[in-house]
C-alpha cells in the first residue's frame, strides 16, 4: 500500500520534472503561435477593411498586402525553394550557411570583446585613477554609431592583411565588451566590506582577493552581461558585414534580399527570422553554460 503510494509519488515527481524541463519550450512555442496569429490577423483585418482601421477612414500604419507582409506559410515555403533562379541551393541551406558564417564572426568577437571587457573591469576596480581616466571614453565609445566605426576597422584590417571576416569580428567585439566591463566592475565591487576585511585580516594579496573573492562574487554579474553581449555580438557581426564586402554572411544576405525585395519578399523575411534565431540560439547557449557554472541560488535573474 505504502509502496504503491511511493511509486505513485515518484511517477508524479518525474512527471513534474518533465513539465518543468519542457516549460521553456512551451513558452517559446506559445510566443511563436501568438506572433503568427497577430501577423495573419492583421493581414486578414487589412483585407477585410481595405487597409483601413475598422469603422474609420484612417489608413492602417502598414499595408497588409502580400508584398508588404507575406503570409507566414509563404515565408516557410520559400525556405525550400532555390533562392536564385537556376541556383542549386534552397534558401534554407543558403541561410543556414550564412548564419554559421556570421556566427563564427560573432563568436570570435564575443570572446575577444568579453576578455577585453573583463580585463577593463579588473583594471578599473584596482585603480580609481584608471577608472576616472578611461570610463568616460568607454561610455563615449558606445555612442559613436557602429556604421561610422565599421568602415574604419575594415580599412585598417585590410592594411594589416586580416581576413575581412576578422575585421567584422573586431566590430562585433566593439559592441560586446561594454556590457561586460560595466557588469564585471559592478560584480567585482559587490562583496560586503566585511568580506574584503576578512581577506585583509589574512594579509591576502590583491591577486588573492581578486581570484578568491571578487571574481567568484562577480560571476553571476558577468554571466548576465554575457547574455546581453551574445545578442550584441550578433548585431555587431551583421552590421559589420555591410560595409566590409564580406560575401558569405547574414548581413550580406539581408542586403541582397532587400535589393530584390519585390521579386521575393518572403526571402527577406526569412533572413530576418534567421538573424533573430541566431541571436536567440547564441543567448540560449550562454544560458546553458550559466546553468552549469552558477548554482540556482546565485543567479541574478530568473
Amino acid at each position, binding site marked *: 500500500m505504502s509502496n504503491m503510494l511511493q511509486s505513485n509519488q515518484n511517477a508524479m515527481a518525474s512527471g513534474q520534472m518533465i513539465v518543468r524541463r519542457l516549460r521553456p519550450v512551451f513558452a517559446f512555442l506559445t510566443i511563436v503561435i501568438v506572433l503568427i496569429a497577430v501577423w495573419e490577423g492583421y493581414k486578414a483585418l487589412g483585407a477585410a477593411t481595405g487597409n483601413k482601421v475598422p469603422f474609420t477612414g484612417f489608413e492602417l500604419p502598414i499595408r497588409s498586402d502580400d508584398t508588404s507582409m507575406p503570409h507566414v506559410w509563404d515565408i516557410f515555403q520559400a525556405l525550400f525553394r532555390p533562392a536564385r533562379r537556376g541556383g542549386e541551393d534552397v534558401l534554407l541551406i543558403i541561410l543556414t550557411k550564412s548564419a554559421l558564417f556570421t556566427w563564427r564572426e560573432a563568436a570570435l568577437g564575443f570572446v575577444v570583446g568579453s576578455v577585453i571587457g573583463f580585463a577593463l573591469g579588473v583594471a578599473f576596480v584596482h585603480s580609481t585613477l584608471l577608472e576616472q581616466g578611461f570610463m568616460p571614453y568607454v561610455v563615449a565609445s558606445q555612442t559613436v554609431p557602429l556604421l561610422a566605426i565599421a568602415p574604419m576597422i575594415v580599412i585598417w584590417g585590410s592594411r594589416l592583411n586580416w581576413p575581412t571576416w576578422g575585421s567584422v569580428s573586431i566590430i562585433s567585439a566593439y559592441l560586446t565588451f561594454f556590457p561586460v566591463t560595466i557588469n564585471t566592475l559592478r560584480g567585482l565591487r559587490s562583496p*560586503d566590506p566585511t568580506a574584503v576585511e*576578512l581577506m585583509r585580516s*589574512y594579509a591576502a594579496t590583491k591577486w588573492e582577493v581578486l581570484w*578568491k573573492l571578487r571574481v567568484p562574487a562577480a560571476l553571476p554579474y558577468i554571466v548576465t552581461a554575457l547574455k546581453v553581449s551574445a545578442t550584441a555580438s550578433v548585431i555587431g557581426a551583421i552590421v559589420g558585414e555591410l560595409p566590409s564586402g564580406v560575401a558569405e554572411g547574414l548581413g550580406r544576405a539581408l542586403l541582397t534580399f532587400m535589393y530584390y525585395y519585390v521579386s521575393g519578399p518572403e526571402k527577406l523575411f526569412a533572413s530576418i527570422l534567421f538573424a533573430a534565431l541566431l541571436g536567440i540560439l547564441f543567448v540560449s547557449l550562454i544560458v546553458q553554460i550559466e546553468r552549469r557554472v552558477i548554482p540556482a541560488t546565485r543567479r541574478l535573474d530568473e
Partner: protein
Amino acid sequence: MNENNPVVSIQGATKVFNEGGTDRVQAVKDVELEVYPGEFVTLIGPSGCGKSTLLRLIGDLITPTSGGVKVNGKHSKQARIDRDYGMVFQDATLYDWRTVNKNVQLPLEVMGYSHDDREKRAAKMLRLVQLEEFANHYPWQLSGGMQQRVAIARALAFEPAILLMDEPFGALDEMTRERMQLELLNIWGQTSTTVIFVTHSIPEAVFLSSRVVVMSARPGRIHAIIDIDLPRPRGFETREDPRFFERLTEVRECLRAGESGKSHVEGYK
C-alpha cells in the same frame, strides 16, 4: 595574571574619521588597554561608542589617527601580516560559492597550507564546532547559529594568537545565543587563544569574560574595567549564581554612569 607581558597593548589609540570634513567623527579617543595571554576581554558600550572601531584598530583593519597598538611587542600591522588575528563579524561573512568545508579552508589557502594539511585542519575545526556532517553544505543551507559556528571554525583554523569578535552572536535568538556562548567558552578552553569580544549585551559580557571593558560614547573612551571573578568552567549554573547578578549590576551601573558622563573612579585603572 599581570606578571606576564601583555599580548595586546593599546597605547593612546585615537581614531578620527573624515578629519577636516563637516562629517568629522572622533570615534575612539586616548584608549589605553592591556590584554594578557589567554584572557577573555569584552568591550561593551552603547551603540556607536566606538567598539567596532577599537576592534578594527587592534586588528589593523584601519589605522589609528594617533597612538598605536602593539601585539607581543610588534606593530599591529606586522601582527596582521604574521597572521596573529582571527576575525569573526556579526554577519558570518561566509563566501556563498564555497561549501562549509571550503569556507573553513579559505584562510589556509591564502596562507599556503598544503592540501592535506588544509583538509585535516578543516575537519578538526568542524568537529570542534560540531558541524562535521555539514562539511559539504553551502552556507545558505545552514541556520544563523550554524553559520556563525562555521565563521568561528574558519577564524580558528590557522590557530591565531588572538581572536577578535565583533558582536558575533548579535543576530541570533536568545536560546541559540546562550548555547553559542557556552560553546565558545568550551572552544576557548581547549585552545590557548586570547579573545577580544565586542557586545552590547550585559549578561553576555559577564558570562563570557575575564574582564569587561565599559566604554562611553562620543568620543569613545574606556570608562571602567571590571574583573569578573566567577569560577570556571562556567555553565548554566553560572547564570544563577548570586555573584553573576552582582557583576551584572556593576556593569549596568557603570554603563549608566558612562552615559551620563560622570567618571567611575574606582573601576578605571
